[in-house]
């Protein structure tokens, strides 16, 4: 598997940012499920599940990055470094599967169809491409970007339909998330893109959080 290049000064900050993303996506997911409980609206359930899957992906990523930075800072033995490395590889797989499943669920929600077979086929095809590819990390970012292009278009149409500031904020958030993922593709070769990817993700999740606060405060 290929690895991204993380600038030395950014080690530790990445873990903190990912923990923030975990908290925000968990809150949005839990809130969407609360809306589902009140309204019985299927779209809210799918939206909630997708955000909870993405939040689980960030939690794993954050823990892994923390473990890696801790083992480097403490100067662990070769044996424990190897254990962290093996755990890290397993964790990256879990992170990728959870994140892609979250995005597929979100894309399926936007289709507004009720067909579990179509969802299963859609998910299986994407996971097969990801897991059978030789360069998994590259394919993960590429597939995420493709799904986010589709989701961003959906939110652009949603904004053009509603013409509300809140819909514009959500569109901007998904666009920022898309640019973040595109930056991660290049982070396989350059560390600066890894930092830029995280900062763009931060912008995306702060925008989503602002929108959630606006809805709850009314």
């Amino acid at each position: 598997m290929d690895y991204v290049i993380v600038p030395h000064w950014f080690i530790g900050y990445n873990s903190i940012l990912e923990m923030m993303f975990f908290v925000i996506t968990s809150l949005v997911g839990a809130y969407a499920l609360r809306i589902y409980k009140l309204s019985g609206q299927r779209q809210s359930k799918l939206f909630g599940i997708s955000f909870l899957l993405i939040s689980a992906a960030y939690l794993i990523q954050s823990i892994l990055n923390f473990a890696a930075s801790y083992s480097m800072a403490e100067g662990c033995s070769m044996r424990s470094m190897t254990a962290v490395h093996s755990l890290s590889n397993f964790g990256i797989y879990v992170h990728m599967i959870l994140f892609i499943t979250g995005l597929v669920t979100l894309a399926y929600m936007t289709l507004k169809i009720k067909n579990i077979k179509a969802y299963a086929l859609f998910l299986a095809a994407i996971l097969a491409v990801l897991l059978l590819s030789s360069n998994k990390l590259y394919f993960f970012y590429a597939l995420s970007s493709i799904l986010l292009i589709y989701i961003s278009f959906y939110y652009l149409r949603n904004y053009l339909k509603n013409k509300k500031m809140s819909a514009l904020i959500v569109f901007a958030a998904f666009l920022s998330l898309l640019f973040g993922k595109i930056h991660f593709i290049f982070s396989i070769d350059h560390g600066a893109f890894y930092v830029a990817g995280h900062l763009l993700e931060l912008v995306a999740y702060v925008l989503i959080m602002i929108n959630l606060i606006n809805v709850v405060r009314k």
Partner: protein
Amino acid sequence: MSKKRDRLQIIYDILSVIKEKNGKIKPTNVLYRSNLSNQMFIEYMNELLQKGFIVENKTKKGKTYSLMQKGFDYVNKYQMIIDFSSSFGLSE
């Protein structure tokens, strides 16, 4: 749109009309503004009265309706659902 949502929307529309002119709205005005048949209107209003969403006030000029706390809570929660759904593109 699902059947359940239609029903929730109708209840929201009735309660919103009453909320707008709280304590001063007559049944005919609610009927006119909620856009329901007479039969449906009576069924919904009886249910809302029974469940404590609204209260009937009898005056010399006739009956008026006002919202109870449960009614205010419903309107606020429904508005929150609409805001969340429209901003995150969840409307069916």
